[in-house]
């Protein structure tokens, strides 16, 4: 019984299945009769064959479809509801969707469109509505999240003049080009900024016409010509080279060697300002076109610096020789006078005194030394006596280099003598150091060293080198007169000279 029931059930299922197949076959025949199918698929000896039922139209459509499938640009057609009705192989690749998945879906389900500028969307809508087509660039966001820059041409498809049937889009991936354009733009901004802010004049010249095609702002400042005035001129016309022949010669050399350099050319601005310039010109290839770049640097300041340095070196050399001559004289005189056993110590002290004055001059860049500053330097070991036993009285006055050297050495000798034999050798003695500038038709500078309350003074029996230093050497340094008086109450030394030969104008030390 159970087997019979199962057999009956299986038979019923088979009958239902066959009924459904029969119904399908009837539906198919009905559809064919009613013209609801495009093609029939018939299995023959060589495999399945497709028979189109729409004749010429179907064949044309098939041909068009095959053509579009081979186009390298993505081609997508959508109906009036923006459902995809066609996409070619390139579109499948571009958006990562197989046609079998994408057909019938809304276009927005396979990609989102972003506009480069907010106003582009309205412009595209207007163009499609008014002209039936739009061409432009925008960004497509794919379903995998990646973006692609595209250049699209969209055409409205119409069933009749008033009824839109859909749109056909031809889309080209221009991502690489856009990225390159972005890099080119960055490069353009970067190098234009260099060109426009450079503190060298830069000219770009067309080698064939030899005329200026561009000039940076600094060039217009150097020459006093506007940009418009420079463009179209040749180099000799802006005063850079003497004449047309020189200009042409430079061009010939450039074409032969690709490089020309002039270390020192005179250049006059439109206003007549003379400048010395260095010119470096190179011939470059600019994407198949040759161009000359001329870098022009104003070297006037550099020339002045070089001249200044040359003068300084000569001056230093001169002063070094002078100093060595003084040291030589001091050494000879120190050796000639006094005890040979103390020669080294005395020579060392004198050179120290000379060095103290030298240090001050160097500190003041050889622009002279204040008298008070010179005294303090020479009495550096007796700083605590200044103001008590050593009194300084005098106005601000700046000795020139020669006077500072001579008077400095004299002060050193006077101090050494006072410490050994004079007013600073006992507990009561004092030294008054005074100086003044006496106004006259020819102003006179005088300086004195007066000792008092020291041991009784007697004139020296032998004339030592110290007396030479405070006498003849000091006089020679200031071209003046030195007077030495061995008063019983103390040594008195004065020196007098024309202020013009002794002083430099008073100024603040740098």
């Amino acid at each position, binding site marked *: 019984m159970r087997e019979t029931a199962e057999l009956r059930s299986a038979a019923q299922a088979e009958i239902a*299945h066959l009924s*459904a197949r029969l119904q*399908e076959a009837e*539906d*198919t025949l009905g*559809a*064919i009769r009613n013209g*609801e*199918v*495009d*093609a*029939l*698929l*018939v*299995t023959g000896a060589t*495999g*399945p*064959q*497709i028979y*189109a039922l*729409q004749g010429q*139209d*179907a064949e044309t*459509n*098939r041909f*068009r*479809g095959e053509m579009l499938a081979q186009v390298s640009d993505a081609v997508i*057609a959508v*109906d009036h*509801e923006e*459902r*995809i*009705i*066609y996409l070619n192989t390139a579109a499948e690749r571009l958006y990562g969707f197989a*046609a*079998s*998945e994408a*057909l*019938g*879906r809304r276009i927005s389900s396979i990609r989102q469109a972003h506009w480069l500028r907010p106003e582009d969307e309205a412009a595209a809508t207007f163009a499609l509505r008014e002209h039936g087509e739009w061409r432009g660039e925008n960004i497509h966001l794919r379903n995998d999240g990646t973006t692609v820059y595209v250049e699209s041409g969209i055409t409205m498809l119409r069933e009749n003049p008033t009824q839109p049937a859909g749109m056909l889009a031809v889309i080209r991936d221009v991502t690489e080009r856009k990225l390159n354009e972005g890099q080119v733009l960055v490069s353009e901004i970067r190098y234009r900024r260099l060109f426009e802010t450079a503190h060298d004049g830069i000219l770009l010249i067309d080698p064939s016409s030899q005329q200026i095609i561009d000039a940076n702002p600094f060039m217009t400042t150097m020459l006093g010509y506007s940009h418009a005035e420079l463009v179209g001129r040749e180099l000799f016309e802006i005063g850079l080279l003497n004449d047309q022949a020189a200009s042409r010669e430079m061009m010939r050399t450039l074409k032969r060697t690709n490089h020309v350099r002039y270390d020192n050319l005179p250049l006059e601005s439109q206003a007549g300002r003379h400048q010395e310039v260095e010119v470096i010109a190179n011939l470059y290839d600019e994407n198949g076109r040759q161009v000359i770049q001329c870098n022009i640097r104003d070297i006037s300041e550099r020339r002045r610096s070089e001249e200044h340095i040359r003068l300084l070196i000569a001056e230093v050399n001169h002063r070094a020789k002078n100093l060595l001559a003084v040291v030589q004289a001091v050494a000879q005189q120190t050796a000639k006078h006094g005890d040979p056993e103390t020669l080294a110590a005395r020579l060392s002290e004198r050179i120290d005194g000379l060095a103290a004055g030298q240090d001050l001059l160097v500190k003041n860049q050889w622009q002279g030394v204040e008298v008070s500053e010179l005294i303090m330097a020479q009495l550096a070991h007796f700083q605590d006596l200044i103001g008590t036993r050593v009194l300084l009285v005098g106005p601000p006055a700046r000795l020139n280099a020669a006077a500072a050297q001579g008077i400095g050495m004299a002060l050193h000798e006077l101090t050494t003598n006072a410490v050994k034999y004079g007013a600073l050798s006992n507990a009561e003695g004092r030294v008054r150091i005074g100086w003044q500038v006496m106004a006259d038709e020819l102003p006179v500078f005088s300086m004195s060293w007066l000792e008092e309350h020291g041991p009784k003074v007697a004139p020296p029996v032998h004339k030592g080198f110290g007396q030479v230093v405070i006498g003849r050497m000091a006089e020679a340094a200031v071209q003046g007169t030195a007077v030495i008086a061995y008063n019983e109450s103390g040594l008195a030394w004065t020196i007098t000279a024309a202020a013009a030969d002794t002083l430099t104008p008073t100024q603040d030390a740098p």
Partner: protein
Amino acid sequence: MIAAPPASTDPNALLADASTSEPIHYVLRLYVTGTTPRSMRAISNIRKICEQHLEGCYDLEVIDIGQHPALAEGEQIIAAPTLVKKWPLPLRRFIGDMSQTDRILLGLDLLGASSAASSPRP
């Protein structure tokens, strides 16, 4: 992608789907012929039906018989456009441009959508 249909073709497996609250996932294939207007209409119409009645619960594949004749032959397709309902069983075929929405819905067992057992959505 979408979940594959159950490996079994036993119609009884349907009972399992019907007895749970999980929506039935439809697997459909539409065979067309290139870019003819009827093919375009068929694609557009079946997509609309799916989006309105099977949203999120279907997998529709559009196949050009010109590109894949062997696939069509294996599916016993004799005319295009033809829609094949591969899942849920029983397998059904529909011929034409899919504009007869009621007939399609009936064939897909979607007209009684209020029925919890056959509704693709809870």
